[in-house]
């Protein structure tokens, strides 16, 4: 499709529970990016993929966070043992080629609330 589809829209987890977020990029887009936005502040880059390969993971917290993009499946971002500070909106974006040529197309985000 022509939209980046993120599910679920909202997710509530108790502290210590696992959270799994999904992102279906636009068909034909090779690059997928995950960003975290806390309290409507800056977007913090987490990780990017080129097809199923990790392209840049410099923003990923070393513990608890993991992500995958497998062929013929939505990409996923998983947070093990969630903490209160993980409460944020998680945005996925996809791009056909180099971001300088096209910019990104963003999904509508998943709002994660950890209680």
């Amino acid at each position, binding site marked *: 499709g022509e939209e980046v589809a993120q599910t679920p829209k909202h997710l509530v987890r108790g502290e210590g529970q696992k959270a799994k977020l999904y992102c279906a990029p636009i068909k034909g887009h090779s690059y997928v990016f995950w960003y975290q936005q806390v309290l409507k502040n*800056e977007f913090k880059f987490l990780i990017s993929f080129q097809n199923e390969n990790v392209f840049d993971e410099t*923003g990923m917290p070393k513990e608890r966070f993991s992500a995958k993009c497998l062929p013929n499946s939505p990409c996923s971002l998983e947070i093990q043992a969630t903490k209160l500070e993980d409460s944020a909106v998680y945005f996925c974006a996809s791009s056909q080629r180099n971001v300088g040529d096209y910019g990104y197309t*963003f999904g509508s985000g998943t709002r994660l609330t950890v209680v």
Partner: protein
Amino acid sequence: AQRVTQPEKLLSVFKGAPVELKCNYSYSGSPELFWYVQYSRQRLQLLLRHISRESIKGFTADLNKGETSFHLKKPFAQEEDSAMYYCALSGKAGNTGKLIFGQGTTLQVKP
């Protein structure tokens, strides 16, 4: 260090007034700059890219390397321009596609 600064959290103007949303950046190489916009209850969408030098919805932005700025301008604001605006930077050298965003500016256009 790479950084994007949008000094104004909120910019409030009357309809028909000129608008300038400020964006300054810090980057040692040759950057690629973007403006993204988020209208109420909609997803973030690309508004402008500096490499295309286009005008979208009456908005323009010029890259000023001397002042390291990429301010967004519109001569006559419309109420439908009310939204959150984010300036973003991507580096060309070793580009992994990662965007660095500013803090965002809320533009409020009053009737």
